[in-house]
């Protein structure tokens, strides 16, 4: 840009007053079939982006983000695993030569060399040649790195039963329900329902939670006698009066839980 005496500015700013129309470089100055970024190429990019977004949204709809039960530090049996893209580091530390007494080697030296090498690649591979075949050392080191990362990730993920893990750790909100064990309905509940639905109505392996249901007293009476979904008929054993007490007990516990 032209600088110095004779330049006109807008007000007291540093913006030049004389408008020069911007003329893009001539296409002949570029080799091959160039294309203007705006708007021609951007439109195509936009289309690719739209297709990508549709695929991405299909993924999110088909597989909702997982959520396990709330953190419970006392759960000693839980198998801790990092997100998948850290599995290779996690796996590396399991090996004898990289964990335990050699922890520093596995946690710092090996990843440090690998990622440090990646960061400083331009200064380690200073030759003028760009073709992969003309720089065999650099390319083979990178291939070694990529293969190791994929292999370590595979090793870490392969023996985990992901479906069983998700099944064991379903998100169930803790119920702050106080079950009134003095209620005459509770005695009936103990007899007919507790075995499957749990002592605090929270459900179990065989039956769902009874907290958060939206049935009326009459509907609960019907379900207790006739069953629903996987619940077989004839679970309730007792008189009509007890059935009424049971249903009222479940409804009142629900009302209390909703407060």
């Amino acid at each position: 840009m032209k600088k110095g005496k004779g330049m006109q500015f807008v007000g007291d700013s540093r913006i030049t007053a004389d408008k020069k129309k911007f003329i893009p470089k001539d296409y002949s100055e570029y080799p091959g079939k160039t294309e203007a970024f705006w708007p021609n190429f951007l439109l195509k990019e936009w289309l690719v982006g739209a297709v990508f977004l549709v695929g991405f949204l299909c993924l999110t709809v088909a597989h909702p983000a997982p959520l396990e039960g709330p953190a419970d530090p006392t759960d000693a049996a839980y198998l801790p695993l990092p997100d998948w893209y850290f599995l290779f580091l996690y796996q590396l530390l399991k090996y004898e030569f990289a964990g335990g007494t050699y922890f520093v080697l596995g946690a710092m030296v090996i990843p440090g060399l690998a990622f440090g090498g990646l960061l400083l690649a331009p200064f380690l591979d200073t030759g003028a040649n760009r073709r992969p075949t003309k720089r065999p050392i650099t390319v083979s080191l990178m291939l070694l790195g990529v293969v190791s990362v994929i292999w370590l990730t595979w090793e870490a993920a392969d023996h985990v039963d992901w479906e069983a893990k998700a099944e064991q750790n379903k998100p169930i909100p803790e119920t702050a329900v106080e079950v009134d064990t003095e209620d005459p309905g509770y005695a009936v509940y103990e007899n007919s329902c507790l075995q499957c639905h749990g002592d605090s109505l929270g459900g179990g392996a065989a039956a769902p939670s009874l907290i958060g249901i939206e049935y009326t007293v009459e509907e609960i009476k019907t379900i207790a006698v006739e069953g629903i979904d996987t619940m077989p008929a004839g679970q309730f054993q007792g008189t009509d009066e007890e059935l009424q007490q049971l249903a009222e007990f479940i409804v009142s516990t629900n009302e209390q839980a909703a407060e």
Partner: protein
Amino acid sequence: MLQKIYDWIDERVDITPLWRDIADHEVPEHVNPAHHFSAFVYCFGGLTFFVTVIQVLSGMFLTMYYVPDIENAWKSVYYLQTEVAHGQIVRGMHHWGASVVIVMLFLHTLRVFFQGAYKKPRELNWMVGVLIFFVMLGLGLTGYLLPWDNKAYFATQVTLEIAEGVPFIGEATKTLLAGDPEIVGAQTLTRFFAIHVFFLPAALFGLMAAHFIMIRKQGISGPL
């Protein structure tokens, strides 16, 4: 009308050079998949940026419901997941986007590496790119804890144990991240939240700006 508004602003702010830098340039033949299909490998950088935009937008909406507190973090995520309209979709986008962005970054890195595009004069841009990769991994690490479910809690505990094992600075690093030398708890969650939502995104935006400015200055690398 639009032209008049443009001229009025241009006279005061001189946006034409800015416009030139952003939009008015040529796309060379060798990077255009319309001419050579194999040039699709040049899409990975742009897709990384696209997913990053998805992450920023979905993350902004998630913070409207999320509560960074051990009592309520899990409950707020559960509520978002089960009760809020489209909450499951927005959280799903953020969850899957975190994985997809790593995949895209990885592919972009491999493209640049195997083409030797990091060579002079693009050394600095390569290093900025690798730093973006590290920041992105940091975002994944800190974001993993935020739902405060079992997998989040125990993964973070393992991460902090690894950090603690580092000689000399391990203890201090763990305390800095977790807020306490022993406990993984309330302080840890708020710190990871702050790192995930303020510190790392700030670093990411700065690095991305540098990355893009350098691309425009240096141009795209030539054909092999």
